[in-house]
């Protein structure tokens, strides 16, 4: 049984038919076609699929798609404004904060959730913001540094 779901994705109204009980991750990737959201576990344990729902970070793999009806969803695919990168994207580039790149979209969204609410976080607050996101390549340090850079505005208009 499929149910229609309507929500805003990165500012645009989208509608999709979701399998009853489907998670938001599968609906975004398979039905809507936003492939910037990656799946890592479908268990709610790796953070790879992190998106923002009404500004709050959510694990899309354990979020019931139909519970997002009428809500505003942000994904990494919507971070860039035209050709201009979001400061977090620039900072991640400058700090070489991605290797395989698979956890990066989720990391960016987890970091955005923090900076949207707290523009001047401490290192501890940055560590807490990304602690639900697994990265197997970088050792986290470059990611923490990049988020702190972005908060300080060190990387605006660069990259």
């Amino acid at each position: 049984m499929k149910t229609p779901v309507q929500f805003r994705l990165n500012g645009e109204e989208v509608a999709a038919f979701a399998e009853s009980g489907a998670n938001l991750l599968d609906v975004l990737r398979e039905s809507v076609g936003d492939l910037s959201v990656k799946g890592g576990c479908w268990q709610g344990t790796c953070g790879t699929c992190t998106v923002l729902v009404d500004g709050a970070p959510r694990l899309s793999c354990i979020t019931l798609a139909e519970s997002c009806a009428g809500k505003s969803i942000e994904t990494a695919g919507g971070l860039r404004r035209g050709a201009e990168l979001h400061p977090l994207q620039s900072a991640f580039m400058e700090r070489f904060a991605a290797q395989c790149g698979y956890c990066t979209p989720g990391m960016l969204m987890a970091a955005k959730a923090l900076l949207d609410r707290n523009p001047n976080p401490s290192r501890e607050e940055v560590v807490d913001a990304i602690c639900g996101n697994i990265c197997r390549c970088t050792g986290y340090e470059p990611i923490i540094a990049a988020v702190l850079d972005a908060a300080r505005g060190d990387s605006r208009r660069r990259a």
Partner: protein
Amino acid sequence: MLELRKDIFADERDDNLKEVGKPTQRQDMLGHVTGTSAYYDDHRFANLLHLKILRSPHAHARIRSIDDAAAARAPGVKRIIRGADVPVNLNTLLSLIQFGKDDEPSLATDVVRYKGEPVVAVVATSERAALEALALIRVSYEPLPAVFDVEEALKPGAVSVNAAYPKNTFEYYNKYDHQKLRFGDADAAFAQADIVLDERYQMSPIEHAPTETNGSIAVPDTNGRFIVYTSTQALFFSLDTAAKINAMPSNQLHFIGGTVGGGFGGKVDTLTEPLAILAARLTGAPVRHRLSRHEEMQFGSPRGGERIYIKDGIMRDGRIIARKVRAYFDSGAYTRLSSYAAVKCAAHIPGPYTIPNVSADVYCVYTNRTPATAMRGFGVTALDFGLECQMDKGAVAVGMDPLEYRMLNAYRDGDMKAHRREAKNCALIECAQVAAEKASWPLRDEFRRMSSRTGGGVQRAGGGADRTRAPAPAPAPATRPAPVTPQRVSYERPAAAPAQSAPPPPPRTPSPPPAVQPAGSTHGAPRFSSVFGTRRR
């Protein structure tokens, strides 16, 4: 923070380069931060089918019967695949380079040899439909005794795990049940040694845990070809393996990959492609075979758990005159790549040190667990753990600073290694010097003057008298090591002795016994503990 030490070995380099050596941005970085890098699963197809695997609940069992009738009738199910459907249902990864016998089925038919071994594949219109169908399959097993410990598996009368290797060991050169390394005469040297240190080390299995699990999508293409989008770490390795198992000419397969969400060795085994391709052939539709995280954690091949015994013969002056290693690679139920790792391990013995008498026996052993495979540092990581813990114990035993003990025994250009090749392009000593300097680790002058180049420089270290002296002061962080000037050592480093020759004589000047722990100081050798000697009080 990373510092390039261009001053060291500068005479061996031409640094007049325009692009090489520059911190250029990664070609793929923009794609990564915008979420536009295309991994294997970022390709969409109409009518995509999903393949899921029914796995053995037993570590070792005979399959009596399989009833998949109900599953075949379940909603959304397009095809059930059994071992008999697999064109070539026996393979070993390294058969591509003629190494080892075919020993592993894609789908078990008569016996399952580890918990999680694939038995039946279901192809359905959704993952959920496939998973629900799996729950309807009834397999009748006759449980068999299992073996999980590498040394238990080698005992007479142990359960035989792998039909191709009934004695539970990989067969080397159609002749030996393990890889040998023989250099000098270790046993004779132990008799001459002041100290013999015999220790056991156990590596843990490790899951690669890439954030992207293993997976592939096989898509029927025009003219009978198949396009395969894959997370493989080795494109043609996987293509040729898939072609062999599907009995297809390799040019009917078009593999596309190259952007992979981490691998670390866990995406070499071609775990998903062969069945995805077979399913696509049998259904005529695109098929995705993606491991769940649970499958990746428990049934995707891990780094194997190696058990390593190391026995050193050491002279009081710190020279290691003999090293004997016995290593067991836990290959799990099938060979995959462990047979290769065992040879690589043997080649790495005795580590980056010049030891005149070396003997090693490295076994690739079968047990009833998930087959192991390559992982970052394959064949070496566990050995280095054992060797470097052993070096620490040796240093303590002779009362030497652990770093100076390593530098004393470190290989230099021109030294003969145990696998009978001359060492060249060595740099262990320089790494030790730079790390010590950065960490304010006290090294005595003669050690700061040492060199990896032929001979190795400086007066003999670790001699009797100066070991009793107060710890050398730490070099000021700013100081650079003295310029490296190649010169011969003034003492005879143990020569690479032929098998029959006796080990080198003990040092002329008698050495005092191993230094004793000064009361109240921290643990480890006296000079070593000077670093933190007062910290705890």
